[in-house]
């Protein structure tokens, strides 16, 4: 068994993983292969067992049960045509305002965010529905593309959030508390996006022209269109009420949400075998993807910690005698950098077990740090070259929108996210107020 210093261990493990990823290895494979190799060389055969114990402890976790069910719920809602109706509603309500459709899109995103645990749902469905509609009405393509991608990423911060559930699992936080902490920052960020769209369209109305005279709707029509918000509104309230009001655990609430979504689909006459089969199979695929990454990443970080290399970060901080806030900023910068190349779950599994004990020792609130992390992961979804929402958008956007357009469109929103992050760093009470009030 080799005894290497932490820096060498870190270099070997991370470089081999990055080489494998550059070779196009699926993330779970890169983590498993590099973890197994390191375990065998540096730990001896006993280290290989950690893959098994990582698999079993990930499978045997009641908190994570919510993960497939929130995915299930989001897919049912997406398939039952709720997004179409919501966009039709904002068109009637806000079409006359310069940039109004953009603002409405963000509102719909926030609402979908409150129903779905993952961020793909809003980006894909609004990319299909809202994007062509806004382009047709002369909206600037970069403005609307960015709006949809940024709005979609709200799904992490506005509960329920799959990322938060996994974070809670790793950092031994409470899921309910994290959900409560994400809500206000999520709404704040939605507000910042809306203000941005309105300001830009006020300065240059050509970016988001108001709807023409013939697309005017009467007050009555507007009022009737509001009915589309009723069913999803009830569902969102029920699920969040179950969790925050303490009626059920988050995992049970996710089952209530999944069943509620099927009920809504049934009421709308959309619940049939095809929809159910699609949802069951897609949920299986996404769960397989997420949980195999989880298993591999838990394994990788256990090997890394077991080799004693985890202390390297603590040592670095001590050596440079950084001030507590500098440490936080360095951590956030590392999230941002990793976010350009890695998947959010990979970043979570690699960094959080190392960072959270340090954050706690420095005397910061770990719930607040969780919100900072989730916010950073929203940016990771938008920063090129590796960003899911960029890929989702590319897969649904019309040909006229190039990958370069998509990259450029994301940048102002990344800047707004950094602004949001800075606000939460400066005023932790934005995140901590609600959980403090509730629990």
């Amino acid at each position, binding site marked *: 068994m080799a005894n290497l210093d932490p820096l060498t261990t870190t270099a070997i493990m991370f470089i081999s993983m990055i080489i494998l990823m550059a070779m*196009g290895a699926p993330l779970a494979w890169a983590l498993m292969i590099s973890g197994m190799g390191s375990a065998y060389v540096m730990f001896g055969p006993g280290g290989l067992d950690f893959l098994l114990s990582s698999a079993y402890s990930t499978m045997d976790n009641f908190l994570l049960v919510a993960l497939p069910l929130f995915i299930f719920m989001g897919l049912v809602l997406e398939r039952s045509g709720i997004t179409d109706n919501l966009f039709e509603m904002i068109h009637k309500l806000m079409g006359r305002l310069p940039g109004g459709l953009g603002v409405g899109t963000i509102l719909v995103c926030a609402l979908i965010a409150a129903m779905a645990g993952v961020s793909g749902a809003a980006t894909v469905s609004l990319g299909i529905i809202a994007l062509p509609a806004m382009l047709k009405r002369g909206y600037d393509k970069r403005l609307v593309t960015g709006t949809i991608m940024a709005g979609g990423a709200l799904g992490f911060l506005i509960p329920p959030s799959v990322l938060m559930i996994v974070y809670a699992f790793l950092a031994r936080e409470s899921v309910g508390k994290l959900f409560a902490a994400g809500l206000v920052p999520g709404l704040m960020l939605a507000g910042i996006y809306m203000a941005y769209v309105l300001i830009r369209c006020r300065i240059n109305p050509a970016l988001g022209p108001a709807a023409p005279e013939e697309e005017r709707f009467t007050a009555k029509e507007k009022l009737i269109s509001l009915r589309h918000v009723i069913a999803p509104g009830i569902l969102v309230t029920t699920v969040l009420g179950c969790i925050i009001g303490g009626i059920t655990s988050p995992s049970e609430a996710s089952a209530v949400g999944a069943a509620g979504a099927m009920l809504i689909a049934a009421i709308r006459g959309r619940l049939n075998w095809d929809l159910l089969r699609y949802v069951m199979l897609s949920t299986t695929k996404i769960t*397989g993807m997420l949980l195999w990454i989880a298993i591999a990443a838990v394994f990788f970080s256990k090997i890394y910690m077991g080799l004693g290399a985890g202390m390297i970060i603590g040592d670095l901080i001590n050596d440079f005698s950084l001030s507590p806030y500098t440490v936080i900023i360095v951590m956030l910068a590392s999230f941002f950098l990793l976010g350009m190349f890695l998947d959010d779950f990979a970043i979570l599994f690699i960094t959080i077990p190392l960072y959270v004990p340090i954050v706690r020792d420095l005397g910061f609130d770990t719930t607040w740090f969780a919100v900072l992390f989730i916010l950073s992961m929203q940016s990771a979804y938008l920063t090129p070259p590796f960003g899911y929402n960029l890929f989702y958008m590319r897969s649904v956007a019309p040909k006229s929108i190039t990958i370069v357009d998509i990259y450029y469109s994301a940048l102002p929103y990344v800047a707004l996210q950094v602004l949001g992050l800075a606000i939460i760093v400066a005023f932790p009470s934005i995140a901590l107020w609600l959980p403090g009030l509730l629990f």
Partner: protein
Amino acid sequence: MSKITGYLRFQDGLSDWVGKATSWLTLGIIGVLLYEVFARYIFNAPTVWGHELATMFFGALSILAGSYTLRHQQHVRSDVIYRLLPFRAQAFCDVIVFALGILVLAIFFKLSVEFAYRSWLIGEYSNSSIWRPALWPIKSTIPIAVGFLILQCVAEFVRAVVRLFGVRYDDPRDDMSDDE
């Protein structure tokens, strides 16, 4: 239809079958947890098995889904550099990655067989609730899932090898654009 195509069609079909069978667990989890909530509030009698059974369904779903996810190429990869490579180099990378993957998974398989067998041998049961279920069934899903995943990995490896050597073949995955 060449032998390669026939093999790939069979293997993809096997993983699809596993995925379809596994996907029923999603409804199983929903059912168990809804019953638990009902039992607690309507009958005022929470079950002793609800949470643990739901967790077991979840665990089985997670691990068994692996091969189905791979068959549909849904395991996340970062193609930032990969997609810049020429076709043959991509195939070469895939050969390496899947060969190493099969090796790692083979070790995983061996360990998990022993893990499940030991659990069965000593009659291990869970102690997190007073339900105290036997643990060998859930532990056995690991070798089963890893076994199916190895089989699908072999198919991916074969695909990479034939691409590397420029053999022409019809990939059944190309003409059935997923199966939904």
